[in-house]
């Protein structure tokens, strides 16, 4: 798999493009993203906020990342490997799902509701945490999920099913959340 990072050198934050590319290749292999994809990672180092999203176009994938998403929340402008792995794991699991015929055919990201995003993120991060043996931040993801699906027992049960789930389809995701 070819991974490219833009910019190749960072001026405002203490990030290293080579390290990001290596982490992305590592996470992609763990997740099981098809080998023949070209993955480009665009990091907006000027942006301290933390949004990140993926765009799939044929066999090429662009991950757009606001710099804050890779930043250590405890150390200003410093890189966080654990945080970066989580962001990449979440995005790349969703990418892998899109290339998996068994998953089904979800709408494009721009057409997803916030509730659908939250559900798919929970399913992706749960799998990533298990596979990587990492702390996926289950409770903070539960909070994000509750904001979209309600602060009630039904929403919590749905979240647990997603987080603990494997081999789910897009239809399963929607059914679990009663969407």
């Amino acid at each position, binding site marked *: 798999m070819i991974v490219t990072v833009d910019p190749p050198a960072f001026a405002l934050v203490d990030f290293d493009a080579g390290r990001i590319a290596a982490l992305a290749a590592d996470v992609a292999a763990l997740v099981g993203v098809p080998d023949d994809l070209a993955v480009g990672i665009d990091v907006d180092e000027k942006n301290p906020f933390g949004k990140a999203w993926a765009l799939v176009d044929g066999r090429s994938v662009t991950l757009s990342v606001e710099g804050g998403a890779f930043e250590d929340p405890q150390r200003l402008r410093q890189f966080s490997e654990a945080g970066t792995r989580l962001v990449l794991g979440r995005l790349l699991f969703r990418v892998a799902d899109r290339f998996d015929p068994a998953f089904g055919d979800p709408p494009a990201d721009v057409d997803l509701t916030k509730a659908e995003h939250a559900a798919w993120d929970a399913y992706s991060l749960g799998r990533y945490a298990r596979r990587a043996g990492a702390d996926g931040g289950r409770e903070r993801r539960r909070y994000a999920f509750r904001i979209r699906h309600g*602060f009630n027992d039904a929403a919590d049960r749905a979240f647990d099913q997603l987080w603990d789930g494997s081999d789910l389809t897009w239809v399963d995701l929607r059914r679990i959340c009663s969407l």
Partner: protein
Amino acid sequence: MRKSFPAEDLARDGRFRRARTEDRFEDPRNEFLPPGRRAGKLTPDRSDAAHAARQLMHGIFVGEIQALEGAGRTVWDFDDDEAPFALKLDMARQCWDEARHTEMSVKLGEWMGTEVGEFAETAFLYQAACNPDPVLRLTGVNRALEGLAIDVFNTMREFGEACSDPVLSFCEDWMLADEVTHVKMGSDWLRRLTENDPERRERALEFQRVVDKLFSFRGFRGEADDSPIQLARTFRRMAGFGDTEIDTIAADAEAGSDPEGWRAPVG
């Protein structure tokens, strides 16, 4: 134990990480944020709502610890002739209140999935509580900082209501009641201690304005739709702020969105 305790020495356990206030304000990324470029008002509509709310809640948590420490230092730092017993009594009461707020913030952090120390802490709030003049300290802390707390808690309470988060809105409503009391303390003591000293009152209000402006930088707090923290006019009135005074804070906040300005220290 020394009188006057520097912010660098504030005691924390190993989970906390301190960021220098100057580094926050002088972050080179600030200049690339175009005018008016803000994260936006904290509502569930923001796609990063959960993260933003968690980060703000952690900022509140460390702010409560510093408010507790600041009130405690006011009790200790001044002799009886510098600060009357009744003032220290109010500050001791505030210690208890801020201790409760710290406890509530820890519980809220857990509720939101946040770990203690997950985000860096700046000591900016405590720094305002280091002024050697008790009147300036009281005004900077109990009118500017606690006034900001009113704005923040009201914003968080509304966020909790909009998300139907029963725990967040419940806790913020209680904290808001206490903060209104603290601002009232500040307003009362400013009036009492400077009754016959208009020059000192002016200096205190100027210090308050400086602190207020720092909190409003880049529209972090203001009345614009995209200000993350909204100015809570009704609760400020309850706490003894006049309309003209609130107008000034709003105007300074608006001017503070100037691209030359510093970013806010929290959130």
